[in-house]
């Protein structure tokens, strides 16, 4: 889960990482007041989209009036599809230099990794590999001062900045570790008046560890539909196509979407009902899918833990309740397959055993709809 910049900065600041003076504002008046208190400010849209600066999500203002106007313009606007409801009004920094510092998990190395560069800022991803220094963290040891020192020296830092870099890196790791983060990032790590400061802040918490952090407010920017389906314990992503897809397992759901595309169709969503969800959530999710009015629905179930008869039951339940006006193509094989087919037959629902045939049928149905 990504945290908003202002939340990440609050946590950084609480852990003694220097951050700019700032106020979170929900309306232009608050922004004006903040600017009055702070002086010249940057006004930053609080959205979770990447590339915010390039997308116009940051404005500057010298006076409260300018701040009010800039905030008014940002608030209510959209940054890469995310509506702006809050802005962070922050002291405008006199940045002398921009470094980069991040900690994340390197899946290949199966370790947390510190990454740092002298060339921070918005173009960090174009920085050549040799300008990035890194250190893999042994989870049995953690990040120690000597490792941070080694990174700082390799960046060519000296004296005061070197010492600040070491302290800040160790603190960032403490936050990364204590908050079960997947990412703790400062970009730019700005040099302001000869001192290091977190000009921006990112902190992504591992969703699977949120239960250990009841104090962290859940940030969920999904649509109502996404939230409703997630509430059923299922994994859902909205897409652009017109064929609703439901399958059991992330891999097979993706493979179903891929196959659809290769046969000329386009998935309207990713919905994984894997892991023995039971017929009730499956029926509810199916209803929610139907409510989006797709051209067709493709259900691809390879029954393992998911039992085919439960899938059949979910389908029958939905059909009984509201009928099936939208073409529904079902592929069903695996555990309790025969019971399922018998039940479906009794309710006039047909199904495929072959995935290719089912996908072809779904594409045809969507084209004819």
């Amino acid at each position, binding site marked *: 889960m990504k945290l908003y910049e202002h939340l990440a900065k609050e946590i950084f600041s609480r852990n003694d990482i220097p951050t700019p003076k700032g106020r979170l504002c929900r309306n232009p008046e608050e922004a004006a007041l903040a600017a009055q208190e702070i002086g010249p400010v940057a006004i930053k849209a609080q959205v979770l989209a*990447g590339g915010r600066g390039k997308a116009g999500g940051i404005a500057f203002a010298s006076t409260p009036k300018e701040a009010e106007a800039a905030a008014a313009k940002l608030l209510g606007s959209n940054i890469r599809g995310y509506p702006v409801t809050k802005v962070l009004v922050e002291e405008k920094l006199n940045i002398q230099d921009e470094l980069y510092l*991040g*900690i*994340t*998990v*390197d*899946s*290949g190395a*199966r*370790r*947390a*990794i510190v*990454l740092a560069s002298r060339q921070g800022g918005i173009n*960090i*991803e174009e*920085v050549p*590999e040799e300008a990035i220094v890194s250190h893999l963290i042994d*989870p*049995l040891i953690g990040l120690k001062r000597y490792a941070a020192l080694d990174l700082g020296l390799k960046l060519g830092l000296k004296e005061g900045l070197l010492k600040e870099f070491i302290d800040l890196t160790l603190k960032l790791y403490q936050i990364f*570790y204590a908050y*079960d983060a*997947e*990412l703790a*990032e400062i970009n730019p790590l700005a040099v302001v008046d000869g001192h290091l400061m977190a000009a921006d802040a*990112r902190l*992504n918490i*591992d*969703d*699977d*560890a949120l*239960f*250990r952090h009841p104090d962290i407010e859940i940030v969920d920017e999904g649509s109502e539909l996404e939230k409703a389906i997630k509430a059923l314990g299922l994994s859902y992503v909205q*897409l652009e196509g017109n064929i609703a897809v439901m*399958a*059991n*397992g*992330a*891999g*097979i759901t*993706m*493979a179903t*979407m*891929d*196959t*659809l*595309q*290769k046969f000329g169709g386009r998935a309207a969503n*990713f919905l994984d009902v*894997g*892991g*023995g969800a039971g017929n009730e959530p499956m029926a509810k999710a199916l209803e929610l899918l139907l409510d989006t009015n797709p051209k067709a629905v493709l259900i691809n179930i*390879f029954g*393992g*833990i*998911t039992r085919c008869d439960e899938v059949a039951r979910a389908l029958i339940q939905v059909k009984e309740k509201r009928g099936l006006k939208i073409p529904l193509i079902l592929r069903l*094989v*695996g*555990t309790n397959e025969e019971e399922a087919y018998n039940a479906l037959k009794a309710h006039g629902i047909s199904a495929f055993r072959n*995935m*290719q045939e089912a996908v072809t049928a779904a594409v045809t149905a969507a084209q004819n709809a």
Partner: protein
Amino acid sequence: MSLFIDRDTKVLIQGITGNQGAFHTQQMLAYGTKVVAGVTPGRGGREVLGVPVYDTVKLAIEKHDPDATAIFVPAAFAYEAALEALEAGIKLIVIISEHLPLHDTLKLVALAKVKGATIIGPNTFGIIAPSRCKIGIMPNPIYRPGPVGLVARSGTLSYEVAASLSEAGLGQSTVIGIGGDRVVGLTFVEALELFTRDPETEAVVLVGEIGGTAEEEAAAYIKTMPKPVVAYLAGSSAPPGKRMGHAGAIIERGRGTYEAKVKALEEVGAKIAAFPWEVPGLVREVL
């Protein structure tokens, strides 16, 4: 013997009294797996399907000396369950549980190395040596013994592939789910190394997906691997996944996409199936 497990492998089930644990214990017993004991703290002394239940792994070990354990406990307790197995000296730990905190997995992976143990998973469907032993949650009927090694990240998709192999008369030596999480115990590369050394395995099918760099790392190994590899990768149509800030981009450096993975695998001679059902045909070609 197949990789890790065989007919005589004695299996412990941690979380045996839970719904998942009990259901899959039944399935494993039905498959012929020697499930010798179960563990659920506070439930020692009971039986589940004739399998004795203990309060701790240590107590179970004193009586039954299991070779492997399967962990079915909820995510919040899975870390300690795996530690308990590691500390007790069990050398094969299959973590079926999903949603383990990432930092927990990092520690487990490091500690498993210290203890000389193998962790399969977390978030895995398990491991099966067809007709001999199954430790996991995969459906019983779809596997047949044979010369094809199968290693996959995701469960149901691998069942699809395994079933199509079996239908085509291509049995499997061992099928391993490495787990769907960003960090897992046994990696593709390690599984491929094991298949390389396994006399029963003549070809390997790798079922991967977009995200991470596991397939690219596998490709680097396949380059010098003497046995043929066929791969199917899911995610060709998926939009770019959630990115882990700049740091993720710096680490991945363009890897992780469908195109990058296919390119890496094709360059080292692996055959890529466009659809799951194409896998058996490609395996026949290389066998």
